[in-house]
């Protein structure tokens, strides 16, 4: 297993290097000057040069790239934000936690909802229940997250006033006791998790439903039934296990997609996080933040695929066997 992980990690190194180099070139070659926002019409051109020098933009591109690579590799320094002067690692660290919280909760919610409803629809296949669930899930699948978010905001926050419309905590969060704080988090995360999680749950639902229906009709299930194995055991031990395989391979794609989905949700619900950080960095040409966040995104993709591969090989030993045989 360790050798498989190591091989996968080593395989991903060139991908990360190429990806980061391309990102560096694209952001630096895009027309526009990140220093312009620091200038006032009444300032002299010398100040402009000072700002260029401050950000290291006065050097040729290949020197800028080499300096950046040196800093990252040897000092683990991703540079300071052009916008607020904070170290990029600090900016990303504070932005990453809320995003992981949001994306993690949305993923767990989507998995539970998608799997449970998928199984329910499959065992009640072609009944009213199945059709109703399928139609509702298709609606969520085809609804853009920003629309869903605005609708939830309009109904549950503005019209009904049941849930808060923005931020991760209330203004008076620190004044609350432990239970109050926990409830405060749940209240604030409820709508964003729903917005991000429902379309994802619909995706999982489709795979699980069709997977379970297919499995229920297969010969090995018929054989199991003939041997007198109980319904629940057949469903959860055999059908579901096989139906989960496509979901696992989907996880590699889902994790980066969750991060990009979080961008919209974070803006709508004014949540702190990677999404907002990335958007403002891109618009403000904040090169250090863009590059550091890109490295993180590349790692997320690689890690997502790695996790999927490992989980896959745990659930389906044939894969492990095949990999060993090939190597």
């Amino acid at each position, binding site marked *: 297993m360790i050798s498989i992980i190591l091989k996968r990690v080593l395989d991903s190194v060139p991908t990360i290097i190429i990806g980061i180099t391309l990102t560096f070139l694209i952001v630096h070659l895009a027309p526009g000057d990140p220093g312009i926002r620091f*200038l006032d019409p009444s300032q002299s051109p010398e100040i402009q040069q000072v700002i260029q020098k401050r950000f290291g933009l006065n050097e040729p591109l290949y020197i800028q790239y080499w300096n950046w690579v040196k800093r990252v590799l040897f000092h683990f320094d991703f540079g300071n934000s052009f916008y*607020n002067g904070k170290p990029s690692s600090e900016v990303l660290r504070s932005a990453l936690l809320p995003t992981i919280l949001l994306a993690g909760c949305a993923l767990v919610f989507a998995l539970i909802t998608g799997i449970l409803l998928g199984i329910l629809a499959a065992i009640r296949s072609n009944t009213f229940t199945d059709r109703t669930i399928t139609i509702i899930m298709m609606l969520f699948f085809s609804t853009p997250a920003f629309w869903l978010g*605005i609708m939830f905001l309009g109904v549950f926050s503005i019209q009904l006033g049941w849930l808060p419309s*923005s*931020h991760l*905590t209330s203004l008076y969060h620190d004044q609350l006791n432990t239970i109050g704080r926990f409830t405060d988090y749940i209240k604030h995360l409820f709508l964003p998790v729903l917005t991000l999680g429902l379309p994802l749950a619909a995706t999982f639902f489709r795979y699980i439903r069709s997977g379970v229906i297919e499995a229920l009709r297969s010969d090995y299930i018929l054989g199991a039934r003939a041997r007198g194995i109980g319904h629940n055991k057949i469903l959860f031990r055999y059908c579901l296990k096989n139906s989960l395989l496509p979901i696992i391979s989907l996880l590699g794609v889902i994790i980066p997609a969750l991060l990009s989905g979080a961008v919209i949700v974070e803006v709508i619900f004014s949540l702190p996080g990677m999404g907002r*950080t990335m958007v403002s960095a891109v618009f403000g040409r904040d090169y250090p933040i863009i590059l550091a966040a890109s490295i993180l995104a590349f790692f997320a993709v690689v890690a997502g695929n790695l996790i999927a591969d490992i989980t896959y090989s745990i659930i389906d030993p044939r894969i492990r066997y095949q990999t060993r045989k090939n190597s």
Partner: protein
Amino acid sequence: MKTTHLIIIVCLVFVLFSCDSKIKNIKQLYSETDTTEIADGGTLVVGVRSEPESLNPLTALSQTSRNIISLIFRRLADLNEDLATFTPQLAKKWSFSSDSMSLIFHLRTDVLWHDNIPFTATDVIYNYQMQINPDVAWDGISYKDNIASVQSPNDSTVIFTFHKKSLSMLMDAVEGYIVPKHILEHDPPEKMHESSFNRHPVGTGPFRFLGWKDQQTVTLIKNSSYYETGKPHLDRIIFKIVPDNLNLLTQLKAGEVDLVEGIYPKDFQGIIKNWDEGKSSVRPVSYVGRRYDFIGWNLIDPDTYQEAIQNEISEIKINEYIKPNKLFGSQKVRCALTMAIDREALTNAVNFGMALTMDGPVPPILAAYNEDANIHWYYDPRQALKLLSEEGWIDSDKDGILDKDGVAFEFEMVTENGNVRWEQVATIIQDQLGKIGIRVTPRLVEPALLYGKMLPSKDFDAVVIGWVVGLTMDLAPLFHSSSFFTPFHFTGYHSLRYDSLDSASKNTLDPKAAQQYYNNIARLLSYELPYTWLYYRLECSAIHGRFKNVKSDKRGMYINLEDWWIPLDERNRIDKLFEG
């Protein structure tokens, strides 16, 4: 069934009447004159769209940062509403030396920094040193150009000595909030933008910094040691970051935030209506602000400009090297374009009545403003066509587009992508100029590209953008030949007459003579039209009615925040939670 209907109708009528009495109560409650005794305490929640980048006056740039800074820090003196006189702050009084070349400030001796260290003259000297240090890149550095030196004979006296006498000596000296030397002296100037002070500021103002939750809130609390005894009245100010405009307005209406600035005029009209009808406790506040929008014409040929840059020619040789723009190089053409645009209709259409049509370069908030000095180009498409035909622009091939020497009168009008108002302006101008045979193509450009490349390299035809004006009269960065090669002088305007008027206005010590120069500048520029000035915007803000003694003017919403207060019976849940 009929009985049921009757009951429902009776209930509805009852509900409606109940609502009406509630509406009257709201209006009465918040419209009352302040007669009760001022009560201390309470929290103000300000909704802002973006996070401040820094709370250090030497490095901050955004309006959000500046607003917060204005509550934490203090200047030597504050500019009054007339923009000519000053109110003492950290300096209790000042006087000119006998030769009028120096200004002597006598500082207050009862001022403490928020960390309880006394404020002294050494702080003022340190500030000046940092403000003029190019490595710090302070955005107000030009205010200090005329200052020769700053000295302190003792801890409570500071002497500013100037290179030459000018009307703006006091303004030049007091511009800039004072930061603490004892904290910042450990940071090298070139690292000022990375200093931890930027996120943990210590000032002398009425509120002190309490905390900053990334992308969520910045909290200030009352400075109990503030030198103006008995102030501020509010206990706490929370700046809540809400990037989504719809969400921000919703929170304002729901009472989750108390104050929002920069409301879109269309939304602002709704707030006015609801307030007037007594349906809402959110009070609209509007005042003549500091922003205007205009069309900038490219007066020069971009290719010859690039050649001039490559050959590093000086400003004095501009006319020799740089050719005029084939479309906008002629004053008559710019005049015709201005007359072909119905600026009044445009102003009302995009601002919903919350703007004033503008004719010349001097903003109406400045004392130098004189409406009669401007030349007014009234909407007259026929006269515009006549002027264009005099310049040789006629529709010779009958394709509906004016042409001259085989060149069609068509151009791109660039503007900032994402700014809905400017996008609308460009579309309306496209329509209006189309009616006289000029083909305009609006082009939306990303801000970094527009301000970072297209405008500085003068590589555009016409642009629709806006400026935020300072509180002093200085048009040189935009029109003086000495700034011809700087990024913001993008129209390529150069005029010896303008240069001499500008210099004369800055060198005179007679306010009347200065006004005469300003009038001449306004007349010249509104005749030459390097810009077609469109409108001057009114600031649209809204604040919850429970806040009393709120004053606002062209200097902004925060000019007297230390005087704001909330009556005890109007405190809300957040006030009580923090007090409890």
